[in-house]
């Protein structure tokens, strides 16, 4: 069974069911009233027939013929059925023939039916129009035949009227259904737009956004209040996370600052070069720890997306070229090359973060791509997006490395002896996501190929 999942689908289903019910009701009404009216006509015909046969028995054929001529095509009364409703649709017709089949009286039934009931017998009305009638024929004791017929016009009129009412009902149902569906859809969409607007604001790092409430006490207001309570909770958590981060920063960095000061003083007073070296190494180790800590907090900060509020239009190719030139001597010194092919494209973003992302990828190549591996950087515009690929021609990463390289503190070097904390590519991915972009590993026969797709504003 197909269950509709959209308002439109549900409305179409509801309207279809309503339409079917109305149609069925209409058909039933037509069927029942049709049968009832038909039965009434038949009953009347039988009553008339009985009366006429009795009249014939007591008064004879000539008197009956006179009587038939008088009543044929006239409106009747006195039986109670359909009486007093004006002349329409209650025409009774009569015909009388002798034993040889010659017409004695009655002119409106062109062809005499056999004895018994005949449905849809063609008739002519006094005004010249034609129609169909229910007819009952009976043989007279003298060999003649008498026919009594009732015009079916009343029946078809009733059918037509019920059909009209049913169709009108169907139309009203479909019309109100359509209008209310559109109105409901608008109402829901308007409220959902408000809700999704607030959610989008939160996604973009504005934790103060709330869903507006109109005070109507509607289901939307109730769900909006619940959402707002949830958003309030998120804001509180984010604020306390930020507070904790800066508290840790303060409480950790202040004593470390004092330690560093003491070490510097000790280094100046060191009795020999060897002691000074050891103190210097200790300071370097402490700085490395701080660096790891700052790296982790930095990734969380970029993931918090608050950085987005400072995004501006940037010449991306220039930024990439700048970083490539900054790293060129480092590649040259090791006899490696760095090649860049850059198309102009403007993107919205933060120059410092983008520089950091590119620098991290180049450093990743310098440290991890293997001896002599070269770097190839391209920037192209594809379907309105800026696509930056950073590739090397080293041995590449193990097949099971995959997406793991973007995780924090992951290092594919099992000895963990190479420099770095395994945060570089995590930071790259966080920066790319902050720019509403995507990063992926492009399968390649040699080396690691990273492709970054950022929403571009236009080709330069």
């Amino acid at each position, binding site marked *: 069974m197909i269950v509709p999942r959209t308002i439109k689908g549900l409305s179409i289903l509801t309207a279809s069911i309503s339409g079917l019910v109305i149609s069925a009701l209409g058909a039933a009404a037509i069927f029942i009233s049709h049968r009832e009216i038909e039965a009434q006509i038949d009953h009347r015909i039988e009553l008339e027939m009985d009366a006429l046969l009795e009249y014939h028995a007591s008064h004879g054929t000539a008197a009956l013929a006179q009587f038939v001529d008088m009543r044929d095509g006239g409106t009747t009364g006195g039986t109670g059925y359909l009486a007093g409703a004006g002349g329409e649709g209650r025409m009774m017709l009569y015909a009388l023939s002798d034993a040889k089949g010659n017409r004695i009286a009655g002119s409106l039934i062109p062809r005499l039916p056999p004895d018994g009931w005949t449905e849809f017998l063609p008739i002519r009305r006094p005004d010249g129009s034609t129609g169909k009638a229910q007819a009952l024929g009976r043989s007279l004791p003298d060999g003649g035949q008498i026919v009594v017929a009732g015009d079916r016009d009343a029946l078809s009129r009733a059918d037509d009227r019920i059909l009209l009412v049913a169709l009108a009902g169907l139309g009203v149902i479909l019309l109100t259904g359509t209008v209310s569906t559109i109105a409901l859809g608008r109402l829901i969409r308007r409220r959902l737009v408000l809700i999704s607007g607030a959610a989008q604001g939160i996604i973009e790092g504005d934790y103060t956004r709330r869903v507006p409430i109109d005070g109507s006490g509607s289901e939307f207001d109730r769900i909006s209040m619940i959402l707002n309570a949830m958003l309030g909770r998120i804001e509180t958590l984010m604020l306390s996370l930020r507070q904790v981060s*800066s508290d840790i920063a303060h409480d950790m960095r*202040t004593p470390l600052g004092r330690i560093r*000061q003491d070490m510097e003083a000790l280094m100046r007073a060191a009795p020999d070069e060897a002691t000074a070296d050891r103190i210097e190494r200790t300071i370097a180790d402490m700085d490395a720890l701080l660096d790891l800590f*700052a790296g982790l907090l930095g990734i969380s900060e970029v993931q918090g997306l608050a950085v987005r509020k400072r995004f501006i239009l940037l010449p991306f190719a220039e930024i990439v070229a700048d970083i490539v030139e*900054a790293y060129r001597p480092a590649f040259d*010194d090791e006899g490696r090359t760095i090649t860049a092919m850059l198309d102009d494209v403007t993107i919205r973003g933060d120059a410092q*973060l983008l520089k950091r992302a590119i*620098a991290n990828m*180049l450093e990743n190549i310098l440290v991890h791509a293997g001896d002599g591996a070269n770097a190839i950087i391209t920037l192209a515009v594809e379907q309105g997006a800026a696509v930056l690929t950073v590739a090397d021609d080293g041995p590449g990463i193990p097949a099971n490395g995959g997406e793991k390289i973007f995780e924090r503190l992951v290092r594919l070097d099992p000895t963990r002896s190479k420099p770095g904390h395994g945060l570089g590519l995590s930071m790259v991915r966080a920066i790319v996501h902050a720019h509403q972009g995507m990063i992926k590993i492009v399968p390649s026969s040699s080396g690691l190929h990273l492709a970054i797709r950022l929403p571009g504003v236009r080709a330069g």
Partner: protein
Amino acid sequence: MRILLLEDDKETRDYLVRGLTELGHQVVAESEGKAALARTLAEAFDILVLDRMVPGLDGLTMLRLAREAGCQSPAIILSAMAGIEDRVAGLEEGADDYLIKPFAFAELAARLGALARRPPPGERGDAQTLLRVGGIEMDLVRRTVKRDGRTVDLQPREFSLLEYLLRNADRLVTRTMLLDRVWNFGFDPKTNIVETHMSRLRTKLNEGGADNVIRTIRGSGYMIVSGGQ
């Protein structure tokens, strides 16, 4: 130089006062934001050194109020708040430099030197167009460099690097200062960007057997000496 120091941690404050006094500066130290603001508005200082998280008025608010009251002294923020946004906020509130704790004293001293040498805002229009230190002559308009009369061909980034060193001649220039000012890197790369460019610049300047004019100060940074060896 007259330096205003705002720092609430006594040990750090004493250490900085001692170090800066040894370098020949006159230091006024405060441990609380409101007192530091009153001092700044009442007296003239060549430079403000402000910790961010201090009691009373925090360093950033203090700086903003001082700037609103017309104080133009260069300011450097010292802070344990090391986030990306923290640094941006510091610079947006009117700080000229932002140094994250813990830091090397040499780094602070070098940055103070560079800040003090900056011409005040408004007077930058008539900056010199020719820098001459020792045997090096740099024409900032025609973007040419000569060493003892011999033209030296430099890449744009090498030119900026040399320009910064020349503008800060006889003063220590640290690696992070160069990353900040020459490459505009607001982060610390793991690769020796500065060293690799510096060695190329040196090679070009020293062609033809000239003296090495850029000195390396071990563990701290670089310096161009105007008086020759």
